[in-house]
Structures are given as structure tokens and as C-alpha cells.
């Protein structure tokens, strides 16, 4: 093979490998599209801050952002004001945040008031952890967010903090 052709092929290989790497990376960041068990999450009921059982299925038909968090988790607290803002802005258009706090109720209530949380917050312990796990959170890390379209299909999962820009990118096609 001629040297020039070989170099050209090599460049092509590098470029395609980079593209593949990038694609794989962004794909991973968005979460494996249909891994995890969303059906179980959608079938679950958890107590709200008043202790009343709430079924997640009641928000079906909306684009749902289910966020697992805790008051002892700084990266969780960082993203919540952005969620509050987005709920305010896009709630009318069918965006619904649901917080699932892996924490004790008194602390969650205190925090929800302080941060003017304008979306439902459910509270769980082992059951909530198990739900996060079946939805793809193998490591038990927080924050962990599951995003579902109006039909209840998984369109993204995120382990670690989200911001408005990133989340907008995930929900936009489903809005």
C-alpha cells in the first residue's frame, strides 16, 4: 500500500475512533436508553411529606423528571433550585418534577420549605433505594435522576448533578 493511502486511512481511523468514543461517552452520560426497570418505578407508591401515599403513575402523560436526592448530599442540593425554576417555567407545558428523598421526613420537610420546592416530594428509605437501583443506579449514588416521556418511556438517566441546560437537552424532544 502506498504510504499516502496508509496515512489517509490512519487519519480516518483516528477520526472515526474519536467519533465512536465521543458517541459512546455521550450515550453513557444519557444513560443506556432502555436499561433499568421503569415499569417498576412507575408502579411504585411512596409517602409524600404529609405521609400520604402517592402513586408515581398519577403523573403519567407528563414528561417526568424523577430525582432521587437527600438533604445530606451537597450535589443534590445544588441542582434543586434549577429544578424549581424549570418546574415554574415549564410546568404548564407538561413538565413534572418528582423528588424522591432518601432521608428522614422531618429534614425533608424543613428543606422543602427553605428551598420553596414547588413539586411533589416523596420519601423513602430502602424501598426508594431499591427503586433507584432497578432504574439503573447500581452504585447507590446520589443525586440520581430518571427522565420519562409522556408515554412513560425512559429517555434518560443521570448519576450526578444536572443543570438546566443539560436537562433541557434531554427533555426537549419529549416536550
Amino acid at each position, binding site marked *: 500500500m502506498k504510504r499516502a493511502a496508509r496515512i489517509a486511512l490512519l487519519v480516518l481511523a483516528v477520526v472515526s*475512533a*474519536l467519533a*465512536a*468514543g465521543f458517541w459512546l461517552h455521550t450515550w*453513557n452520560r444519557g444513560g443506556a436508553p432502555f436499561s433499568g426497570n421503569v415499569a417498576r418505578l412507575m408502579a411504585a407508591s411512596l409517602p409524600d411529606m404529609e405521609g400520604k401515599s402517592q402513586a408515581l403513575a398519577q403523573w403519567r402523560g407528563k414528561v417526568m423528571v424523577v430525582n432521587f436526592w437527600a438533604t445530606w448530599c451537597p*450535589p443534590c442540593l445544588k441542582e434543586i433550585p434549577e429544578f424549581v425554576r424549570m418546574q415554574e417555567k415549564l410546568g404548564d407545558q407538561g413538565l413534572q418534577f418528582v423528588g424522591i428523598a432518601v432521608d428522614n421526613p422531618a429534614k425533608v420537610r424543613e428543606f422543602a420549605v427553605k428551598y420553596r420546592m414547588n413539586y411533589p416530594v416523596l420519601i423513602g428509605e430502602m424501598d426508594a433505594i431499591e427503586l433507584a437501583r432497578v432504574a439503573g443506579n447500581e*452504585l447507590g*449514588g*446520589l443525586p440520581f435522576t430518571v427522565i420519562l416521556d409522556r408515554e412513560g418511556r425512559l429517555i434518560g438517566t443521570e*448519576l450526578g448533578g444536572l443543570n438546566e441546560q443539560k436537562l433541557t437537552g434531554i427533555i426537549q424532544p419529549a416536550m
Partner: protein
Amino acid sequence: MNRRITARFFAEMLLAACAACALSPAAADDLLAPEQAFRFSARLIEPGLVELRYRIADGYYMYRDKFRFTAIPRSVGLGEARFPPGKIKDDEFFGRVETYRGELVIRLAVKSAGGFTLKAVSQGCADVGVCYLPLTQTARLVPARSSGEAVRSEGNASNLILRLRDAAPSR
């Protein structure tokens, strides 16, 4: 195409692919399992004194106020844990919090005639912005009988999460 050139070409392609992987930034996907991020072991260094050791992986840290130690059976008396000074972090939510990185050695006085299980609950986070649920690790400790040699027991992460209420300190 010459066979040797083909082989070399594929080797180069492989190298290029590896370079692409390496360029992908470290993210939450590459997180360690909590028992790998916070490696735990404990041993009796002298009669009545336990040394607990956490080897904290680079890029991870633990919170001082989240450690809880208990012995099974409960009749085993545990003294107050002695921590080295940690690093004071000015957290935007919690104010001044003490954290540990690298290696953490904690000493704990214990009153026990026989063997017992030490249960350590801890909580830590990764710098990439992920916090782990409280982690429970245990070590079986048996006082040496005659030789004076302490018996060491490696910690094992048993149940990832204990009851969260046990672990969460009241603030």
C-alpha cells in the same frame, strides 16, 4: 496488501481507538463501587484498642460527622472514636464540615473479653458530584489469646445500606 503492513495498520487503528477512549473525560460513569472507594479494615493493635483504617481512593472523600461504630454483641463496650484532624471544607450548604481524603486511621477503645463484630457506618462522596448512601462495613475482631499477636480482620461491605436513620445524624 502485504500481511505485515496489514497487521501494523490494525495495530495503529487499535492505538487510535485507545487514544479516543482516554480522551473521554472521567465522569460519573466511571465511579467506583463504594466499598472500593472507601476501603475498610480493622485490627486490634493492643488489648482493648481497635485501629480502623479507611483507604480512600483519589477523588473521593468522607465526612467526619457521618461515622457510626457499633459492636455486635451490644454488650461489648465501645469508647469514643479518636479521629485525626481532618480537612475543614467550607461547604456552601452545610458551612464548615470536616472531611478526610487518602488514608484515615481511627482508634477506638473497646471492652471485650471475647471476639466481636465491629460495624462501621460511613458516608462519603466523589469529587465528580456524587454522594454515596451510608455504607456499612464490618470486621470480625478476635483478641489474641496467648501469643499477644493481634488478629486482623479485613472489612467487608456487607449490606450496602443500613437503616438510613441509624446513619443520619440529627443536625
